[in-house]
């Protein structure tokens, strides 16, 4: 099946540029890693839905054209601080195929080239283009209503993943948990136990950032490899909360970046144990858990370059394979092996 056929009656009519009729005149500025992200062309209803959906992630002056107050960038790369703009556009509902969704696992259809990514999905088609800066366009048939937030999020997840890779970071399929002043990332794809371990962490007092997707961002260029205030180790990689959650994690509350205290590859088991991962094993885990970009043949080289950099710096995070059971005994193992005061182990 060629690109778009699954969702569109006429994939050949896929938009070749960011143009068409917008939904309205409203804008929204969202403060996520790699951003801020500006969305223009929203209807009033769409803007209201997104404000409700993304809560604290909405910058206060969203809604006015030419909004000028933006959050500081997460990295100091050349492109840092740029506002990533996207346009919301109309497309007729008749462009999309209808089909039975029962028992079906939803996956966006994508097609990439060195300077563009095309996406097709339920009620959406979208483009990311580098011209040369990244910009997006989302065409949807939903001017509001219950489906719109999900459609928007499906596009936004991809946009953030590509943007972070540009900055040397990654969006990771992971459970992110705050513990002892730092963040732990539990990595695994669907079915690996991210929600289960998030729930167990929550029961032991950990704060869940997201049980689905979290951002791992590199330190700003020029950051010395010394402990920052409030950091117990020189870990300068940071975990940033994303409003993309599964069952757990408050998707509307913004959190500041937290220093990464450990990476854990999840392995469901009947017992609880940690095994250190080699750098290659840790890199393989990050690669496998970097959605969207790891499926893009034109970005794999960049991803394969970014991941070792993340794992190779002065503050390289410790990485483990974590066997965990439903008893939750892993938490006490983390206490002894991964407490900030035990730098040698973690």
């Amino acid at each position, binding site marked *: 099946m060629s690109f778009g056929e699954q969702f569109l009656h006429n994939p050949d009519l896929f938009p070749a540029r960011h143009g068409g009729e917008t939904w309205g005149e409203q804008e929204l500025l969202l403060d996520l890693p790699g951003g801020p992200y500006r969305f223009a062309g929203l209807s009033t209803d769409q803007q209201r839905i997104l404000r409700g959906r993304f809560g604290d992630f909405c910058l206060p002056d969203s809604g006015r054209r030419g909004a000028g107050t933006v959050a500081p960038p997460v990295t100091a790369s050349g492109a840092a601080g740029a506002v990533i703009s996207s346009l919301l556009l109309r497309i007729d509902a008749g462009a999309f195929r209808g089909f039975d969704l029962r028992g079906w696992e939803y996956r966006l259809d994508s097609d990439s080239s060195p300077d563009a990514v095309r996406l097709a999905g339920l009620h959406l088609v979208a483009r990311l283009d580098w011209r040369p800066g990244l910009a997006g366009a989302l065409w949807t048939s939903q001017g509001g209503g219950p489906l719109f937030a999900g459609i928007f999020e499906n596009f936004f997840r991809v946009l953030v993943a590509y943007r972070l890779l540009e900055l040397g970071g990654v969006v990771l399929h992971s459970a992110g948990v705050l513990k002892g002043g730092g963040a732990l990332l539990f990595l695994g794809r669907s079915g690996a136990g991210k929600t289960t371990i998030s729930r167990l962490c929550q029961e032991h007092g950990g704060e869940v950032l997201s049980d689905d997707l979290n951002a791992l961002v590199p330190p700003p260029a020029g950051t010395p490899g010394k402990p920052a205030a409030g950091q117990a180790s020189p870990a300068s990689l940071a975990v940033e909360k994303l409003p993309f959650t599964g069952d757990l994690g408050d998707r509307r509350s913004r959190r500041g970046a937290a220093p990464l205290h450990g990476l854990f590859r999840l392995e469901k088991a009947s017992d609880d144990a940690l095994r250190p991962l*080699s*750098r*290659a*094993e840790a*890199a*393989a885990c990050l*690669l*496998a858990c970097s959605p969207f970009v*790891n*499926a893009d*043949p034109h970005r*794999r*080289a960049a991803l*394969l*370059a970014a*991941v*070792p950099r993340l*794992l*190779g710096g002065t503050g390289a995070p410790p990485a483990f394979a974590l066997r965990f059971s439903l008893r939750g005994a892993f938490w006490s193992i983390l206490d002894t092996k991964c407490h900030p005061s035990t730098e040698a182990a973690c």
Partner: protein
Amino acid sequence: MLRPSSDIRFRVLDGEAVVVRQSAGEVLVLSEVAARILTLADGSAPVAAWVDTLLAEFEIDRAELECDVLAFAAELAAEGLLEPVTAGPARQGAERGV
């Protein structure tokens, strides 16, 4: 002569190799020995030259090393990680170690 398959990209980290198989979207970790062979397979040096290189690095009997290298190369080729050079210059696609 063999070279890394056009389907893979790899990096060597602390001796081990992280290999991305493009078509399947798979990520593999190869042992130090396999990683070393992957880096020696540059499409220009014959397998016999790999043995010479490795003999300088390891204290090992030549005959034993030849057997091991051939077995590893065959295994990597069977897994689709190495491919024979048929014509033209060596490809430039693979990511080398860091």
